[in-house]
C-alpha cells in the first residue's frame, strides 16, 4: 500500500511540534477543503446540538427529510421531565414545496404540532434550501407565535452558510430572544447559569449538585435538561459559567452586554479542571467564604474517593499513547490534563473547530513530537495514529471505526456517550473506559499487534 499523504491544501492545518518549531501559524476557522472528507458537519448541526436538549420545546426542521431523520434521538442529553426533544419533526419538503415554497406547510405543521404537544416554545431550523426558495420563516414564526401565544423562534441554520460555529451563533441568537422574558423574582445573590453543558448521560445533574452543595442557586442549565421557563428568567443569575469550547460563549457575551452578567469559562473534565470550575465560581462569590469552604470540602471528599481508583488504572495505563480528535478544542485541553494525570502521553491533539489561540495553547501543553491538527479527516487521522503508534483514540462515532480497524482502543467523548465523563465521578468513568479499551485482550488478534491480517 502506498504512503498516506496530506493534501496540499491541508498542509497548513497540520503542525508537528519540534521540527516545524518556530513557524506556528496553523490555518483554522475556515470552511473545509472540498473533497477532503472532513469530519465536520454543518451550520445546521451546530444549531441543532446547542438547542437539542431543551426538553419542553418543539424542534422542527424545515426542509427535506434528511436533516431531521439523522438527528432523531441521537444524543445522550437526558431530561428529568418532558422529552419532547427526543422526537423528530420535519416539514419533509417535497418537490412541489420546493417549487411553490414551504411557508404554508411550515405554518400548518407548526399549528398542528403545537396543538398536539403543547410545547413551551418552538425552534424552527432552516436547512440549506430554505433561503434559496425564498421562504420567509421569520414571518411564519411571528404569525404562529401571535396565534399560539408561545415563543416561536427561527434558527437561521442553512447548512452551507458557514461552519458549525455559525450554527452555534444562530442557536445563541434564538435563545437570546427568550432570555429576559421571564420573572427574576426570588433569584438570590449567589446564583449561576450553567451554560454549554448538555446533560449527556446526566452530566449537568452531577455538576449542578456540586454547585448546589456550595450554596449556589442554579437558575438554569443551558441547554442540558433545559426548560424554556428557566431560560426566560436566566438573566436573573449573578454569573454565567460556560463550558464547551465556545458553543455558548456568544450567548454569555450577549447577556453580559445586555444584562451586565459576567461570565467565566470552565471545564468539568478531569480532576484539575473540575476543581478549578468549583474554585473559580467560589472565588467569584468571595464575599461569602462559606462557598469556598464548601468547594474545598467537595474537592477533598471527591478526590479522596476517586484517587485510589485512578491509581489502580494509572499503573496499567502509564506510558500509553493517546490521540485526541474532538469537536471543540477546549475539551482537548482538559483531556490532555486528564490523560497526563494517569500517566498517558498525548501524541495527537486535534479539533474540528479550534481557533488560533486554542491551537497555540495546545502547542504549549503538548510534548515534543505531538501533532496538532485542525479539521482533520480519516486519512490524516489514521496516518497520525499509525505513525505515532497510538494506543488510544478519543473522538466520536465517525472516528471509532478508524481506531477499531487499526487495532487501537477508543473512547467516545462525543454527544452520543451514555456514561457521564464530567465531574469527579466522570473522571473515574473516563479512565475506566480508557482502561477497558486499551487493555482489552482482543487487540492481540489485530494485525498491528501480531495477529493475522
Amino acid at each position, binding site marked *: 500500500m502506498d504512503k498516506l499523504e496530506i493534501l496540499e491544501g491541508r498542509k497548513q492545518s497540520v503542525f508537528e511540534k519540534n521540527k516545524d518549531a518556530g513557524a506556528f501559524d496553523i490555518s483554522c476557522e475556515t470552511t473545509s477543503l472540498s473533497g477532503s472528507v472532513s469530519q465536520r*458537519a454543518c451550520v445546521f448541526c451546530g444549531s441543532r446540538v446547542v438547542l437539542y436538549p431543551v426538553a419542553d420545546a418543539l424542534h422542527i426542521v424545515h426542509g427535506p*427529510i434528511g436533516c431531521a*431523520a*439523522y438527528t432523531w434521538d441521537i444524543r445522550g442529553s437526558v431530561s428529568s421531565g418532558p422529552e419532547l426533544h427526543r422526537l423528530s419533526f420535519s416539514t*419533509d419538503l417535497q418537490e412541489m414545496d420546493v417549487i411553490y415554497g414551504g411557508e404554508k406547510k411550515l405554518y400548518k405543521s407548526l399549528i*398542528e404540532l403545537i396543538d398536539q404537544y403543547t410545547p413551551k416554545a418552538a425552534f424552527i431550523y432552516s436547512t440549506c*434550501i430554505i433561503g434559496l426558495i425564498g421562504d420567509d420563516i421569520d414571518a411564519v414564526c411571528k404569525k404562529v407565535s401571535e396565534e399560539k401565544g408561545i415563543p416561536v423562534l427561527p434558527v437561521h441554520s442553512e447548512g452551507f452558510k458557514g461552519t458549525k460555529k455559525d450554527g452555534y451563533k444562530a442557536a445563541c441568537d434564538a435563545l437570546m430572544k427568550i432570555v429576559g422574558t421571564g420573572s427574576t423574582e426570588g433569584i438570590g445573590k449567589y446564583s449561576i447559569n450553567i451554560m454549554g453543558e448538555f446533560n449527556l448521560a446526566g452530566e449537568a445533574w452531577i455538576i449542578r449538585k456540586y454547585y448546589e452543595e456550595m450554596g449556589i442557586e442554579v437558575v438554569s442549565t443551558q441547554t442540558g435538561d433545559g426548560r424554556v421557563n428557566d431560560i426566560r428568567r436566566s438573566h436573573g443569575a449573578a454569573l454565567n459559567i460556560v463550558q464547551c469550547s465556545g458553543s455558548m460563549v456568544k450567548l454569555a457575551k450577549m447577556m453580559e452586554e445586555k444584562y451586565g452578567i459576567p461570565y467565566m469559562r470552565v471545564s468539568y473534565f478531569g480532576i484539575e479542571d473540575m476543581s478549578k470550575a468549583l474554585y473559580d465560581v467560589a472565588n467569584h462569590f468571595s464575599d461569602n467564604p462559606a462557598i469556598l469552604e464548601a468547594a474545598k470540602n467537595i474537592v477533598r471528599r471527591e478526590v479522596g474517593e476517586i484517587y485510589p481508583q485512578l491509581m489502580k488504572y494509572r499503573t496499567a495505563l502509564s506510558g500509553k499513547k493517546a490521540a485526541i480528535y474532538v469537536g471543540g478544542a477546549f475539551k482537548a485541553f482538559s483531556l490532555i490534563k486528564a490523560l497526563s494525570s494517569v500517566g498517558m502521553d498525548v501524541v495527537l491533539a486535534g479539533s474540528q473547530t479550534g481557533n488560533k489561540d486554542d491551537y497555540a495553547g495546545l502547542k504549549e501543553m503538548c510534548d515534543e513530537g505531538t501533532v496538532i491538527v485542525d479539521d482533520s479527516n480519516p486519512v490524516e487521522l489514521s*496516518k497520525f495514529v*499509525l505513525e505515532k503508534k497510538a494506543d488510544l483514540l478519543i473522538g466520536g462515532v*465517525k472516528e471509532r471505526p478508524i481506531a477499531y480497524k487499526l487495532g487501537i482502543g477508543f473512547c467516545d467523548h462525543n454527544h452520543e456517550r451514555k456514561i457521564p465523563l464530567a465531574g469527579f465521578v466522570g473522571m473515574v468513568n473516563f479512565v475506566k473506559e480508557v482502561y477497558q479499551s486499551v487493555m482489552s485482550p482482543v487487540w492481540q488478534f489485530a494485525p498491528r499487534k501480531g495477529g493475522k491480517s
Partner: protein
Amino acid sequence: MKTTAKAATQNACKLCNPLGACLAFRGIEKCVPFLHGSQGCATYIRRYLISHFKEPVDIASSNFNEDTAVFGGSRNLQLGLKNVTLQYKPEVIGLATTCLSETIGDDVDMILRDYVKLFENGEPLPNGKPLPLMIHASTPSYQGSHIDGFHAAVKATVEKIAEGGQKENLLNLYPNMVSPADLRHMKEILKDFNIPYVLLPDYSETLDGGPWDEYHRIPKGGTTVSAIRKSGKAAASLEFSSVLSTDKSAAGYLEKKFDVPAYTMTLPIGIKQSDAFFGLLEKLSETPMPEKYEDERRRLVDAYADGHKYIFEKKAIVYGEEDLVIAMTAFLTEIGITPVLCASGGKSGHLKKRIEELVPDSENSGIIVRDGVDFVDIEDEAKVLKPDLLIGNSKGYTMSRKNSIPIIRIGFPIHDRFGGQRQLHLGYRGTQELFDRIVNTILQERQHSSPIGYTYQ
C-alpha cells in the same frame, strides 16, 4: 385512528435520497462516494451508516459555501473531485446530488465534462494517472427516500458502464438494499448453481470486512468495473423489487438498451418467495437446486411445523422499505402470523397492490396497508391494533418501549443492537433465522409473563 393528512412528518420512517446512493456506491470496487452539497450531508450520512455497519465510511463532499450557492457548485465540485482523487486514488467516483445542488440547478453532467476537458487541455492529471470513472446519480432529498437513491445509483452505474455485445452465460443480480450477509449468501447460491453473475452493488466486504494493518482508503471488495461493463451482455437480469418502475431500474434499462431479459421478483423471504427465486435459478441455469438448499428448505419446513402453534394468529406490524415490507408480509402470512399493519415511509404507489397480489383477500384477512407514513402514524395504529410483535428497523424501538410491544430488528438501520450487518434475511437460510427469532421472541414473552416461568417449552 387519524384520517386527516398531517402536514408535518414526525419520527420519519425513511431517510433521505443521497444516503441510499452512498450505500450503493460503496458496493463498487475502488469507488469513493461523493456528495455534491453541504458538508453536513456527507457527515450525517457517514455517521448513520457507520453506526449500523461499524466500518469506516468515507464520503467526500463538495462543501458548499455561500458563494457556491449563489454562483453554482462547479468550482467546488471540480476542486473536490481533484482532491478526493489525490487523497483516495479511486478508480470510480460515485457522485450523488443533494437538495441544495439540485435546487440551485447545477448541471452536474456539464461540470463533469468541463472537468475532464481541463485535463485534455493540458492540466496535469492528479497522481499522473487517467481520471477515475465518474458516475452521477441525481438524488435530491425532496424526492422519494433513501431507497430511491439506492436504486438511482445502481441504475446510473449500469448506464454509465454497461456495454452490449454477444450474449454471455451471465446473470445480473440487483439485490436491493440488503445486508452484507445477504449479499454473501446470494453469491454462495449463485456459485453453487454455477451461474456466473454480476452482483450490484456488493458491499459484503467493503462494509463488513476484517481488521487492517494500515488504513485502507478504500476497503477492498465491491463489484468491479470490468464486471459491470459486461452486464449488457448478460443472459438475464434479476432484480429483487416489485415496486420499482422500469424507468428507474437497472434491469429495466438493460432490457431496453441491450435486450437483456429482466426478471423482477419480491425479495426471497419465506418458503414461497424463496421457491420462486430458486425456481428461477433452476430455469436459468438448467440445473436442479443443489441438495444443500433442498436440505435447508426441508429443515425450514420442519421448523415451521415445530414452531407453528406458538405463533399462529399472532399479530404483527411490519414496517420499513416497501420491498422489505412486501416480502415480510408474504412470509408472515405463510407461517400464520397476521401482519395487521404493513407500513412504509416510502411511497411508490404500488405497495397495496403488490401485497394484494401476494396475499389474496388481504383486506378481509385484517391486513392494513399504509404507505408514506411516519412512526407516529404507525404508533397510532398500534394502539388500536394491539399487535404482538413489531418487525422492522431499530427506529421502531421508541414505540416498542412505550407500548410494551416486543420488536424484532431487521433491515436498516440497526443502531441499538450488535451485528445488523451480519443478519441474514434471504433464502431458506435467512428465513430460518427470521423464523427462529420470531418464535423465540414469542416464547420469551410467554416465559416472562408466566407466573411459573417454565424452563422448558
